[in-house]
């Protein structure tokens, strides 16, 4: 509980900085122009740095003990997706992992009964909330393209108006993905607090991104459904940022009075972008580099040489016999290969 409180304190501190900066000191230019550029540069550069850093680490031997029967004798049925020996199988396994979180679906709960027996129970809540949250977040970000693109592409409009926003309340449509995102992240937060084993291992860095994203989704929904903001001015800021049109950004910031809820939302998003590469959120890239997921189990079909092995001088028996075959023949030792008149080794007979 203490760690969750600290995470909330950090997020509220960011909100306080935004409030003091924009509302009291009038630093719209800092929060509306400088901060977002710093954030996006930090995000992209940090993200790529982390990937390159990981890519340099040694790759372990292909792991055969994933959750499925590996390729074996003909009468033993191979699990071609869980333990693939082909590239296609690996791609299917990765896709299931990335898009549907297959390994979370294996989650179960272990408990010791009063009689001292261990029992395993169905526990798919992490998978369900995680799936809802991630897809909701992705589609919400996709929908936000309308604030950065002029003209707005037809497929964004179609998605936002006809599918995501198909339901209306009053005079305005409800974006389902935004509510799913908020519900999913809140459920993940409650789950982390509610399960005592999970709470025991949770640190501030586990709570902080959850609380941060919860507040981002919360301020977003607040702005859309309750307080409202000057969308045209916000879009002018967004397009100005996207097109590096600094004079347009400055003019927008000077002309329009954008609501404080927007500045809270925007500053938290910038904080998330800066925090992202330094944190556990990098699992977004890491999932593609999971050794148990991204390598085909073809140990028995393909010879894998350790790339950082030092060069070792070897003298194989074949070469040894070639060198000494005349002497061996002379003393009557058996030879594995035949030799022609010039002493060349002939291909081995079957």
């Amino acid at each position: 509980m203490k760690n969750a409180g600290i995470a909330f304190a950090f997020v509220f501190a960011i909100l306080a900085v935004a409030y003091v900066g924009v509302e009291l000191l009038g630093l719209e230019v800092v929060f509306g122009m400088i901060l977002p550029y710093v954030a996006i540069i930090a995000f992209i550069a940090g993200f790529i740095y982390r990937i390159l850093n990981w890519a340099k680490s040694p790759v372990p031997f292909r792991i055969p003990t994933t959750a499925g029967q590996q390729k074996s004798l003909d009468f033993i049925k191979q699990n071609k997706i869980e333990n693939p020996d082909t590239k296609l199988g690996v791609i299917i396994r990765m896709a299931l992992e990335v898009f549907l979180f297959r390994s979370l679906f294996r989650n179960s709960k272990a408990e010791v009964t009063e009689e001292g027996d261990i029992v395993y129970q169905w526990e798919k809540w992490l998978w369900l909330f995680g799936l809802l949250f991630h897809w909701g977040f992705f589609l919400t970000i996709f929908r936000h393209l309308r604030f950065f693109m002029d003209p707005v592409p037809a497929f964004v409009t179609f998605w936002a108006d006809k599918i995501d926003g198909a339901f209306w309340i009053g005079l305005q449509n409800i974006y389902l993905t935004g509510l799913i995102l908020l519900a999913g992240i809140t459920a993940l937060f409650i789950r982390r607090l509610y399960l005592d084993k999970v709470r025991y291992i949770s640190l501030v860095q586990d709570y902080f991104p959850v609380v941060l994203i919860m507040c981002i989704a919360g301020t977003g929904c607040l702005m859309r459904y309750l307080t409202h903001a000057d969308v045209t001015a916000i879009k002018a800021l967004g397009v100005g940022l996207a097109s590096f049109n600094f004079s347009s950004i400055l003019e927008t910031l000077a002309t329009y009075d954008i609501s404080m809820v927007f500045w809270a939302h925007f500053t938290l998003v910038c904080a998330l972008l800066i925090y992202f590469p330094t944190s556990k959120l990098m699992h977004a890239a890491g999932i593609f580099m999971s050794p148990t997921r991204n390598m085909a189990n073809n140990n028995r079909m393909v010879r894998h040489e350790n790339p950082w092995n030092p060069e070792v001088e070897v003298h194989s028996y074949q070469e040894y016999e070639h060198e000494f075959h005349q002497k061996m023949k002379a003393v009557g030792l058996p030879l594995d290969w035949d030799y022609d008149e010039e002493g060349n080794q002939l291909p081995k007979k079957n």
Partner: protein
Amino acid sequence: MKKTNVIIGIVIFAILVTVPFWSAILSPANGAAPEVSFDTPVINQLSGDDYKCVEDVEWMRAHHMDLLSDWKVEVVREGTRMYVAEDGTEYLASLQNTCFECHSNYEDFCLKCHTYSDVNPTCWECHVEPNVAGGAA
């Protein structure tokens, strides 16, 4: 991991994350906020204290939909047609008879921001656009 796979991954990441930037460079539009026009016969005749909207203009930019939503509920559900603004002025709560009386330029007023921000309200499925009606009724 294989070098080529890592590079392909980084390139895909960079392309996806920078969609707003490269699409803005490729886009023909300049992206600036649209100028809504107040050049209509009725607005041009207003002067002095009469030159005002129902509520404060800054507030109307962000909250006109709240006002219209309230009007809708009051008129349709309560049957109240009279709206008293913050400054005490009384208005007839009617999109077509009050709003469009001044803002008779649908294309240069409503549509400007709605198209720019990709906001597609259903007002015009029942209400007649002022241009089609030949000016406010």
